[in-house]
């Protein structure tokens, strides 16, 4: 075996000297994350309308929509989140943004939950539950202005109004209907 081959393993010294120390003193120095990094999401409460589009696409069910009385609660549980950012992609109003935040460890699961409460609108005719939030109604009106006349009504009242107008057309009088 030639001497050159024998001494080859010592090239390590050269490699080590050239590369120097590469370890980053995290957390004292800044972590090496790139601009594309996907961390936890942040939901803009002023934009979110509680439609639940994000809930439908969330693979691990980190985003959930629950209803209690006349509120809709959008809950984001970081413990389940896989940081895929699908919710930000599908949000129709751009309320969800993916942040660079990743230092999320906590001693209490309560810190890992973020809830957003939306109030459910009431039917403008009977006062019953409508099931949608006011921002959702505004969104619908914005995208199809013709709906403005009936969007504030609950399905029952809509049916009633439809039947009423149909009956009026074929000659029924209001007194008959109300009587």
């Amino acid at each position: 075996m030639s001497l050159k081959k024998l001494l080859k393993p010592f090239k390590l010294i050269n490699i080590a000297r050239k590369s120097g120390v590469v370890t980053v003193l995290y957390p004292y120095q800044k972590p090496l994350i790139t601009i594309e990094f996907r961390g936890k999401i942040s939901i803009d409460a002023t934009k979110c309308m509680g439609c639940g589009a994000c809930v439908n696409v969330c693979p691990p069910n980190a985003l959930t929509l629950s209803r209690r009385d006349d509120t809709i609660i959008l809950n984001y549980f970081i413990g389940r989140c896989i940081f895929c950012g699908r919710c930000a992609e599908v949000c129709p109003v751009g309320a969800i943004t993916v942040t660079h935040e990743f230092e999320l460890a906590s001693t209490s699961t309560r810190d890992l939950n973020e809830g957003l409460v939306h109030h459910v609108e009431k039917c403008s005719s009977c006062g019953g539950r409508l099931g949608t939030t006011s921002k959702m109604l505004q969104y619908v009106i914005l995208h199809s202005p013709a709906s403005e006349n009936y969007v504030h009504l609950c399905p029952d009242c809509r049916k009633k109004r439809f039947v009423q107008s149909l009956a009026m057309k074929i000659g029924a009088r209001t007194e008959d209907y109300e009587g």
Partner: protein
Amino acid sequence: MVRRSVTTVSAEEIINMLREKLGDIAEDIRYVESAGIIVRVKPINLREASHIVHDVLDAYFRTMMAVDERPINNTFAAYYVYGLDNKGINIIIETHADPYTPVLPSIADIVPAADWYELEAWDLLGIRFKDRKLHRFVLSDDWPEGLYPLRKDVEYTARPSPRIFYKPPLQGPRLPVGPYHPALHEPEYFELFVEGERVVNVEYNGFHVHRGIEKLAESPRFAYQKVPFLAERICGICGFVHSVAYTLSIENAAKIEVPERAQYIRSIVLEVERLHSHLLWLGVACHLLGYDAGFMHSWRIREKVMILAELLTGSRKTYGINLVGGVRKDINMDKITAIRNTLAWLRSEFTKLADLVTSVPEIVRRARGTGILPRDEARKLSVVGPVARASGLDRDVRRDYPYCAYKDVSFRVPVYTEGDNLARVLVRIEEIFESMDIIDQLLDKLPGGPIMAEKIEVPEGLIGVGNVEAPRGEDIHVVLTGRGRPYRWRVRAPTYQNIPALKVMLRDAPLADAPLTIASIDPCFSCTDRIVVIDLKTGRREKLQTVSIPGGCGCEL
């Protein structure tokens, strides 16, 4: 060596050949573009058909999908997927068993690679295989008898109470390796039977982290576009290959046209993944051989690849950019420059490192001539990936069954005939250089256009095969489409095919070589384990530590 032409013999010719060879046995032969040539046979003729396809036509055994098709046609079906590598086409033997007492003949003596698949089908679907010993294999020991989780009448939420069982202790001197691999930090359990310093037999006890992913994907909780994220979590190192294999199988089945650019991006990310995976493995191998300097430097280089992966996809691991129909993140000029810079740096650094590692006598001497897997044994077990290539089998899915953008690039497939640990080290080192070349070529040719298909509709009842060359070998997914989600999704990770070969490698070898030999197949156990984890409160003292391992992927080091 240049890439072989994709399909030299058309499907028609193979069908004619099959008709001639199989004669009356074949009830029906049809060609499905998304999967291959499907041959339907009666269970009694299964053995003969398997013999003809496996031995006479010399097709590799790739995977077997057992399905509970009782809601569709009142049978249990089994699809044995064989691959004619040199023609780039699959031959699928389809057979249907009785719905009440499903029994199929065992083909494990004709096709040794089918051994595990039969045990798994028995465990998960209750299909009995004649003339062979069946035992508890994938499910944990305390899973109740007679409850087969992949049957459609078992809810995915089923949480049965554990059964009480007793296993007689094994006889003879033996050495436990596990339940965690000393270097790979993964749940596995080998029992090496030893005579002095020599290993005489090996028992593998795996599937400690079977998480039931296949069942979960069939549940109403999932949809076609959610499964890629689940598939990615099958493995912590080569997760992207699983999500690509899944999306390919669905896209093939539903004939979704994926834009060229998306296919290129997928290929680039797949190669980046191979780079970091092989660098990781090389580091671990050095560490196992006591050469920690090599380990440190291999991982130092790997870190740059990880940062590159994050820049391309948004995450260091589990990239999450894949969907059925395309990808979610585009590549711009800045990223292309970053890739080129990283590759240039990597090339110079890795050349030095590879040169160094292969010259260190403690590595070369311990790797040469140990853990030998002879070619004929490798062929019998249809091993895949670097393990196959180190044993003289010239197989590479990227070349033989081109997918994504691999049809547009040329690369060399390193093949060694020694079959020892050193050959497996060298195959991986060469593959790193090839991967860097492939990325360069892909960047040169990167086409413009959209990155997501416009129309994504998946009809019901179609079969699709998706295969990807993972860093560890061929990864193949078979999908039967259903309403809104897969009806059956069969994942076969490379390690599943390679572990049976360990028995051959470890037998009659010195005990001191065992850790390196086990690591030499680059085992990835969570890929191999895919079912339920239940806590074991009862059982023997020795077993207790091996079975109560919490779920989750133990792959990422």
